[in-house]
């Protein structure tokens, strides 16, 4: 079956632009997670959804970062007024409750 998919795979933005990153989880997975992975580092937790409810957003680095999952399936991570330090790979993962997380391939964001 299909895994977690993310789009776009690569995104180049000029500093100050807004970007939107999409995640399509595995069908039926109620839990969805976003991570940020800087070059040469491990993933850093950003936020967690169970269905459409955002249960934990403690990892979002600033109020420029916003995530939503309005119908409990597809999720969008939005970054407003991008900065160079936002350059990273953004990973999405999904799982059944309290089960293994399956990661997507990530979106590589480069802010110039």
């Amino acid at each position, binding site marked *: 079956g299909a895994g977690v998919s993310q789009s776009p795979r690569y995104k180049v933005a000029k500093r100050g632009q807004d970007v939107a990153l999409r995640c399509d989880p595995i069908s039926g997975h109620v*839990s969805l997670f976003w991570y940020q992975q800087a070059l040469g580092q*491990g993933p850093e*937790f950003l936020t*967690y959804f169970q269905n459409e409810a955002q249960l934990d957003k403690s990892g979002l680095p600033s109020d420029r970062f916003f995530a939503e999952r309005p119908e409990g399936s597809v999720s969008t991570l939005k970054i407003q007024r991008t900065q160079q330090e936002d350059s990273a790979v953004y*990973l999405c*993962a999904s799982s059944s*409750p309290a089960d293994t*997380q399956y990661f997507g*391939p990530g979106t590589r964001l480069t802010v110039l």
Partner: protein
Amino acid sequence: QKEVEQDPGPLSVPEGAIVSLNCTYSNSAFQYFMWYRQYSRKGPELLMYTYSSGNKEDGRFTAQVDKSSKYISLFIRDSQPSDSATYLCASRAPTDSWGKLQFGAGTQVVVTP
């Protein structure tokens, strides 16, 4: 200071050798320990999952957790060139969200034919 520390490598070994990887952690509340493998330009995939202390074996992979010394290990026997990847350790406390994993920086492993 990160809660999970991991030597970034690279670690280069000849094919057939044992690969030994380790992490240390500082949060004594961590109870869940995982090892992920990440190929270049791919997402991490779960290799091993351990709850609390002890050993777990799965094929060529063995994971060990020593909570008294806050030390996590992964051993790969009979290493193959296809094992060349970055290996990430991760931990979680019971009080954290299920997905709020704390990852190490990852160790790059190169298995040479």
